[in-house]
């Protein structure tokens, strides 16, 4: 791998940038691999990288039906945080956040991780109590959380509605200073380049159409580029986990829903945190280009369409102008949707399956992006050792049968509500 540095940049500038290597090879699939990872998004690529780096398993292929990071990796609103209250969630996401903190150096690829803080506005007493409780839960396991007074919020985010007539007066805010945002495409590209450098074959335009199961054991995948035998198979295709798992005869506690996001025209720097409106469905951050990227809640009906409907856009915009009236005249440039694997308890599945040698990493609901490095790390561990790491042991498939669901919101088996 050609390392990126100030010196390589200078050297290539002197030769008019015609000598840069491709970031990864474009190999044809081999007839067999030790591990086949289905899905070339952030999670699949991170899994392949950590299989090679942490476990020395380099005879690995990542199969992607389209192009790298073309699914949810390129569709999210790029937030990275670990502000959960349930132990299992908080420990896992905080581990992932720690990996984020050194990821650019680890991959020799700038993922533009910016720890600008993730802030949730508080407006009511019960909500404030709930946020304080959540923050205490985070601090108990060694993570960071602070509660800001209205004055402190005002200094940090002066563009919110602090007027005496505000519909939802801001009474404080919950901040995780280590949270932030990252460049989502760079995460896929960085993991792809680093995995490729360790010998992983990244095969794009290769859709898996079948999983061969013999005597309860997965042995290979049928693809649009022929049959590929595999010692072990990992599925990392969140959004479509139900469909790919069905190829091996599995039925999952997952329903696919759509989540919309949109982006305004670019403006000068005006928002220096990743902001969530605590009294409605609206969250936003300002990209390095100056656009405000924003999202809200699920449309509410199951869907694979990758596009949503106008009522939710209006709902998000209403939240936006309520808490941040100054952006009311900005124009929306683009809008899109991603397919969310919504599980029945709102927590992911990173686990072995009833089929031997077949592993699932999915059910990310709308929180998958921030988990990318942690998810790849524990999934690689699970595949390599045929047993989960302590961090992902709770995220097994059996929890639904035996009553150990991890229901952060406490709403029960209603996927659209998580």
């Amino acid at each position, binding site marked *: 791998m050609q390392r990126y540095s100030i010196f390589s940049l200078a050297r290539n500038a002197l030769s008019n940038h015609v000598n840069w290597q491709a970031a990864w090879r474009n190999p044809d699939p081999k007839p067999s691999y030790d591990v086949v990872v289905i899905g070339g998004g952030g999670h699949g690529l991170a899994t392949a990288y950590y299989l090679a780096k942490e476990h020395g398993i380099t005879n690995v292929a990542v199969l992607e039906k389209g192009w790298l990071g073309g699914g949810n990796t390129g569709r999210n609103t790029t937030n990275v945080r670990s502000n959960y209250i349930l132990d299992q969630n908080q420990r896992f996401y905080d581990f992932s956040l720690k990996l984020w903190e050194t990821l650019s150096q680890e991959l020799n690829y700038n993922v533009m991780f910016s720890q600008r803080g993730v802030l949730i506005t508080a407006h009511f007493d019960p909500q404030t109590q709930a946020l304080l409780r959540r923050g205490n839960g985070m601090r108990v396991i060694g993570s960071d959380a602070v509660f800001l007074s209205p004055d402190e919020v005002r200094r940090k985010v002066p563009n919110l509605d602090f007027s005496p007539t505000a519909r939802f007066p801001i009474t404080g805010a919950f901040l995780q200073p280590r949270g932030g945002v990252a460049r989502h495409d760079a995460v896929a590209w960085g993991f792809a380049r680093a995995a490729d450098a360790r010998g992983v074959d990244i095969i794009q335009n290769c859709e898996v159409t079948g999983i061969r199961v013999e005597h309860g054991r997965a042995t290979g995948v049928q693809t649009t580029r022929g049959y590929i035998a595999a010692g072990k198979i990992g599925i990392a295709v969140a959004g479509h986990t*139900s469909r790919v798992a069905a190829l091996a005869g599995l*039925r*999952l*506690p*997952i329903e696919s829903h759509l989540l919309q996001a949109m982006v305004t025209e670019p403006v000068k720097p005006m928002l220096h945190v990743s902001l969530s409106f605590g009294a409605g469905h609206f969250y936003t951050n300002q990209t390095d280009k100056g656009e405000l990227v924003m999202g809200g809640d699920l449309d509410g*009906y*199951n869907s694979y*369409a990758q596009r949503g409907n106008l009522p939710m856009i209006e709902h998000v915009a209403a939240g936006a102008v309520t808490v941040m009236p100054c952006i009311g005249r900005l124009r929306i440039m683009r809008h899109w949707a991603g397919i969310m694997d919504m599980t*029945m308890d709102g927590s992911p599945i990173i686990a072995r399956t009833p089929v031997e040698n077949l592993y699932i990493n999915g059910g990310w609901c709308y929180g998958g992006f921030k988990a990318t490095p942690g998810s790849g790390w524990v999934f690689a561990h699970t595949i390599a050792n045929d047993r989960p790491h302590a961090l992902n042991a709770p995220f097994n498939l059996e929890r639904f*049968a035996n009553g150990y669901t991890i229901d952060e919101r406490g709403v029960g088996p209603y996927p659209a509500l998580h």
Partner: protein
Amino acid sequence: MGPRPEGTTAQTAWLDFVYLRDNPCGPHREYWHHTLGCESWIALERDTLTHRTGGSSLAGRQDDK
């Protein structure tokens, strides 16, 4: 979602009913509640890939299978 498993306490039957989903990509039959109107439950055919809707009927009637 299949029918409610009456008369059994088998874990697999209830796991299937409460948690597991077919999650189809394509034609789908589902129920909508006309909450702010007549409060009827309506069975609707809808394609989850295209969002195209098909026939509908009042839930629980003979033609709602």
